[in-house]
């Protein structure tokens, strides 16, 4: 994969410092987009942008992730607002699809074609004069070369996903939109796809991934856009989002010997909201993670307590996501 050219500047997008929903060098942006299906509001006034690197688009079922991705890719016309991809409206300027690849959530395959024919077809439609060569390279990217001459109708769900990813990658797009790309894949296939996505992101491509598999998303993204009930619920770095949830105390597990002496002293600390003990394990609630991180080792040293672990329990993407959904 070659690095894409630098994206053109997009209008009306504030600098990233002003709003974590906006990327530093945006390649694709939604400006106050809404989508209504009859009386149902699928997406409500979402403004967000994406730039080089991988961004995770998260949300529970019905949050509006797929609808937003479809608007970003030009599949759906926004009821309100606008979408720009590399400075162009994808609904009006089809040439933008030279730089965009989409892996939709639904099947979108031709069962009678072989994997190779499918990816070659994508390459031909993208204007490649030697589609077979491009298809072989893309099939290699997703480790599907060995099964490329089998019919797509006989593929497993994971293999179909990989074929879709290969078809989306075949023209080396600057922007890659992936709606649940890990669905149906086994752990080995997931690891392979995640490596491929990371490689693209590292080489300057914009990769947007929507997924329910939070642990896998956490492995590949640093920036997250979270949607709940069709609205933007949170955006930015996972840890920054967690820190912004000041109304929800952190839970930290500390393993120490003896634990009871440490617990007694911790109750007097300002940074500590509560402590529960189970054997040598302390579950501490705090709103000041940094203060707690300073207090625990100094107290342990003073009391002669042997510390064996100190780990925040709910700074993971899954915890953050759970809090966001619970707070809707």
């Amino acid at each position, binding site marked *: 994969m070659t690095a894409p050219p630098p994206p053109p500047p997009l209008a009306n997008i504030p600098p990233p410092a002003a709003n974590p929903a906006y990327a530093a060098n945006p390649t694709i942006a939604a400006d106050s987009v809404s989508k209504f299906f009859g009386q149902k509001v699928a997406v409500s006034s979402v403004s967000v942008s994406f730039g080089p690197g991988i961004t995770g688009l998260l949300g529970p079922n019905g949050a509006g992730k797929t609808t937003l991705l479809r608007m970003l890719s030009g599949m759906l016309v926004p009821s309100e607002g606008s979408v720009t991809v590399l400075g162009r409206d994808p609904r009006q300027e*089809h040439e933008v699809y030279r730089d965009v690849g989409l892996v939709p959530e639904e099947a*979108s395959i031709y069962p009678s074609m072989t994997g190779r024919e499918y990816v070659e077809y994508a390459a031909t439609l*993208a204007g490649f004069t030697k589609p077979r060569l491009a298809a072989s390279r893309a099939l290699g990217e997703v480790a599907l070369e060995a099964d490329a001459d089998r019919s797509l109708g006989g593929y497993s769900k994971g293999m179909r996903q990989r074929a879709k990813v290969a078809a989306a990658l075949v023209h080396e797009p600057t922007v890659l939109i992936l709606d649940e790309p890990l669905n149906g894949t086994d752990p080995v296939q997931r690891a392979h796809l995640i490596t491929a996505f990371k490689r693209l992101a590292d080489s300057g491509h914009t990769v947007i991934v929507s997924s329910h598999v939070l642990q896998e998303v956490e492995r590949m993204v640093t920036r997250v856009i979270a949607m709940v009930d069709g609205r933007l619920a949170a955006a930015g770095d996972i840890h920054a989002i967690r820190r912004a949830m000041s109304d929800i105390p952190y839970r930290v597990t500390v393993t120490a010997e003896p634990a009871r002496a440490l617990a007694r002293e911790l109750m007097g600390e300002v940074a500590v909201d509560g402590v529960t003990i189970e054997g040598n394990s302390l579950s501490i609630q705090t709103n000041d993670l940094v203060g707690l991180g300073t207090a625990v080792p100094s107290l342990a040293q003073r009391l002669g307590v042997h510390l064996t672990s100190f780990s925040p329990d709910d700074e993971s993407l899954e915890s953050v996501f759970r809090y966001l959904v619970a707070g809707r």
Partner: protein
Amino acid sequence: MIPTLAIMRVTARNVLGIKRLLGFGLLAMFPAGVFILLARTANDINKSEGFTTMTMGTFLPVILPIITIVISASVLGSERRGNTLSFLMLRPLSRFSIAGAKLISAIVASFVITGAGALVLGIAGSLALHDFGYLTALLAATLIGTAGYSAVYMPLGYLTERSTLMGFIYIFIWELALAGAIQGLSGTSIYRISASAFAGLAPAGLDADLVDASLGTLSAGAGGAVVKVLVLGAVSVAFTGWLLRTRDLT
């Protein structure tokens, strides 16, 4: 391969499965089979009447539209129902070139079957009536009819899942009943447009009463039929391209 050719190749492959080829192939051969049986015992007058009935009373108004409507409606309709439309649309191709490629695919795929039926019926008729002008006239009329129905039913297949049902209503209620009974409606009948081309190109010798009854207020002649179908095709591509550009891809 250029993108539009690739679209045509893939579309033709998708809409012409073995079952469809066999089923529609047999249907397309039905008028020829009936005529061959009839011609074995008939005199020249009855052969002329039988050939006119099989071409202008069975093949062009019933068999050709049934086959063409089902195939044309599926060139975009099956992509939409099979969720492959996004695969096709999110490519750097003009919507009008996609619509054009799809229309040509619909015409070619349909004509593979309708043309085969016309070929066998035309050869049988030409041998019986001692003039191969009937064969060329029938092939030309079949192409015109196939193109006309494809132009109407390709966008309709994209718009609604009930396009085939609507097509059958159009054939049996509008074209065969209403447009036959109300003379002024003849011009709205694709069948009559193709029949006028057939009557205009075929050698003298067709059953005149049957020809007049088929054409209604239209006069025999291929030129007008070709122009009408070209206009229909252009409108179809423009309308389908506009639909693809403005509607949600779901």
